[in-house]
């Protein structure tokens, strides 16, 4: 029997191995990775240590149990002519195999407890970042720095649909990563705007649920500059698999430069509100905004997903401009249509509305200027 089984294994594995070795993949991609990362923060290293410790204890226990079982299966089989003994009770043994695991567990509980206490110690942070989960993107806000932005997955749809070769960071790349300084205690204040998400960066040992109406805390001191990637870890709807997290840890001076640059950029965007744009400019910009923010639900052809996400062909997109602005700025409460008023700048809202009113045969021929959005918000 055993020999036959072994033959079967080889036979079954052969095609698998063949397919896999023929698969073309970006060369930088690490394959057959089997263990947790050790990470770059004090917590991630502790967690890794605990994980390995538990793992080896489990191996020891498994070896003991399996040895006894295999020994019996080999030695105490009827075909060898053995006679079954009749023993079926031993209080001593029962106590022994209750006590030994108990002792192992108590021994494990100590390091686990101290690690947990450290993991929970978010005091004395030098930098606070508010992280808000949205369907399906992250928003990062540097507390007291007046800097905030959204971070969207930047992998093109063509790669997902297999029309283009997949990049090295397929599904794990964003348009704007979170940037933090190294050797600094950063506190993450994690919350959500719609459903529950979970902010997970394996290299930091952080996985913390982002829950609407609650603020959870986590912290990290990153000691190695670099780019660290993670993903949302709590099912949050259709595109749960497509809201990656990218964190760039920079040396302190570079971080400061980045922060200053970011502030200037934001101020510039605000200035755009006062400008007047040509139709073509708005339409182009609107298409970009739409592709980045709206396609997930309303689809590239504006047709939506029947029964869940409405088509944008017709409807408010061909109605009065105020109604259209209202939906996009304030969302539709109680549905998946969020209020984009806070998330997008005035220019971007004006652009996407202009786009929607003129794309897919809507052909309204009108346009919306940033200042209209600004005024709409003021009067709202």
């Amino acid at each position, binding site marked *: *029997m055993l020999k036959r*089984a072994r033959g*079967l294994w080889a036979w*079954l594995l052969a095609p*698998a191995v063949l397919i896999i070795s023929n698969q073309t993949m970006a060369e930088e991609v690490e*394959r*057959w*990775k*089997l*263990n*947790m990362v050790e990470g770059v923060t004090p*917590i991630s290293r502790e*967690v890794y240590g605990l*994980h390995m410790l*538990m*793992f080896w204890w*489990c191996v020891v226990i*498994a070896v003991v149990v*399996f040895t*006894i*079982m295999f020994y*019996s*299966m080999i030695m*105490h*089989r009827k*075909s060898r002519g*053995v*006679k*079954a003994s009749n023993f*079926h*009770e*031993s209080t001593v*043994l*029962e106590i022994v195999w209750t006590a030994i*695991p*108990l002792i192992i*567990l108590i021994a*494990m509980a100590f390091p*686990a407890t101290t*690690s*947990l206490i450290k993991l*929970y110690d978010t005091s004395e942070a030098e930098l606070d970042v508010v992280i808000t989960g949205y369907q399906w993107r992250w928003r990062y806000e540097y507390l007291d720095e007046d800097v905030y932005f959204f971070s969207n997955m930047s992998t093109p749809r063509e790669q*997902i649909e297999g029309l283009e070769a*997949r990049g090295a960071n*397929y599904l794990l790349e964003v348009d704007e990563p979170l940037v933090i300084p190294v050797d600094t205690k950063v506190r993450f204040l994690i919350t959500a705007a719609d459903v*529950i998400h979970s902010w*997970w960066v394996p290299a930091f040992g952080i*996985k*913390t649920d982002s*829950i*609407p*109406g*609650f603020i*959870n805390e986590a912290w990290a001191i990153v000691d190695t500059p670099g780019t660290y990637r993670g*993903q949302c870890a*709590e099912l949050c*709807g*259709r595109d749960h698999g*497509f809201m990656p997290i990218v964190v760039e840890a920079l040396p302190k001076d570079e971080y400061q430069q980045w922060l200053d640059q970011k502030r200037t950029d934001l101020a510039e965007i605000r200035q755009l509100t006062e400008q007047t744009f040509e139709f073509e400019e708005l339409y182009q910009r609107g298409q970009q905004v739409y592709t980045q923010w709206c396609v997930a639900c309303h689809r590239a052809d504006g047709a939506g997903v029947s*029964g869940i996400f409405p088509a944008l062909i017709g409807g408010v997109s061909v109605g009065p401009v105020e109604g259209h602005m209202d939906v996009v700025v304030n969302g539709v409460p109680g549905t998946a249509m969020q209020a984009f008023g806070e998330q997008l700048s005035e220019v971007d809202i004006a652009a996407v509305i202009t786009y929607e009113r003129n794309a897919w045969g809507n052909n309204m021929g009108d346009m919306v200027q940033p200042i209209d959005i600004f005024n709409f918000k003021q009067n709202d």
Partner: protein
Amino acid sequence: MAHGPAKGLRRWLFTTNHKDIGSMYLWFSFAMFIVGGIFALIVRAELFEPGLQIVDPNFFNQMTTMHGLVMVFGAIMPAFVGLANWMIPLMIGAPDMALPRMNNWSFWILPFAFLMLLSTLFMPGGGPNFGWTFYAPLSTKYAPESVIFFIFAVHIMGASSIMGAINIIATVLNMRAPGMTLMKMPLFVWTWLITAYLLIVVMPVLAGAVTMVLMDTRFGTSFFDGAGGGDPVMFQHIFWFFGHPEVYIMILPAFGIISAIIPTFARKPLFGYSSMVYATASIAFLSFTVWAHHMFTVGMPIAGELFFMYATMLIAVPTGVKVFNWAATMFKGAMTFETPMLFAIAFVMLFTIGGLSGLMLAIAPADFQYHDTYFVVAHFHYVLVPGALFSIIAAAYYWLPKWSGRMYNEVLGKTHFWVAFIGLNLTFFPMHFAGLAGMPRRIPDYHMMFADWNMISSIGALIFGASQILFLYIVLDAIFRGKKATGQVWEGAEGLEWTLPSPAPYHTFSKPPEIK
């Protein structure tokens, strides 16, 4: 009333006979197992390689959700109730279940519940897509319209389970043959008695949870909506207060089955009968104190975190006792390896692996890395598939000769075992690695670094699925063409059911048997 069964469809519709009802439960659960398996295969087909090839992400979410719901409530639980129906009266020397009409009712509402649940897939907006754990607000404010049918279906399943549980408790406590004291009952009866109490405690909690979801989606309440003063985390507490005992509901009867099979084929009495009973009871009790180990990352206060970590570690102790007792039962026996024994041994080994990964998950700081990854998917499949499911398959092979009066084909049975065993390990073992390497669960697409493990998993799943078709063939082949079985069936088997002829007559123990 006549002594034999009625003829035709009426026999099955109106039957109050525990054997008929048991058979219906078992066939129903097999059908659901195939349906849930097809859903899993759709999931695995999409995950065969990176990229979106086969399904839309929203449909993918419906498939994982439906797979979980159908397997848990449609395949595993009804199968155990079916086994209880067939075997408990035979094991305790009772003529039938205590409440036969309720027995009929508790079965017959099930097909309608599942018809309703499955029909949601064809509704506008699709079926449930929020995971079998239906966390709010994804299942309330953001749910598809069909959520109300999901809720109604869960209510019916819950009612069915509660009725089944009441029936089992009433039967075990009132219908034992004279001399069948509690501490003489086979472990399958014991574990089911304890499971029945778990069911009666937690199914109403699940009913409460779905009712609150209904109120939030349709009647404007805000139980789980922070904006209205509610709390989405409360949903998780309520769900897992049901959910964790639920996983023991799916494994305690399995412990009973394995405790029957191993002694038979080791030809040696079960080691530590009374410690097995006490371990079962303590697992059941502790199962109410560990629910929040599913929620280590929700931001609980550290005291709560520590409490649930310690309690979870503690529950591993009685579970370990069981494994050691089974190993000691095998030790110095005179073993043979018929199909039921192969499945039982695989149960002990692979369940141990699932239990050990569970122990790793119990370590709260480490769980921050494991939670909601494929490591967890690997863990719960190691306890559910070679655990719950293998015990049911083992039970089917073990008692089929008693039910049908005919033997199955041993060579085919062993083939089924080896194919299933290989397929299962190919499917679920690599998931440990994918999870540790960083792959979250419930995603339809993934980075290439997880590609190799996923491809192996998908191939394994196909093999595992195919082996179940063989299972169906083996059972049908046995029923229609099998060799006649003796009353004793297995050389080393002990217990009242083996004192009856095979197949067991339609009415048994109308006169209570003599208990030695």
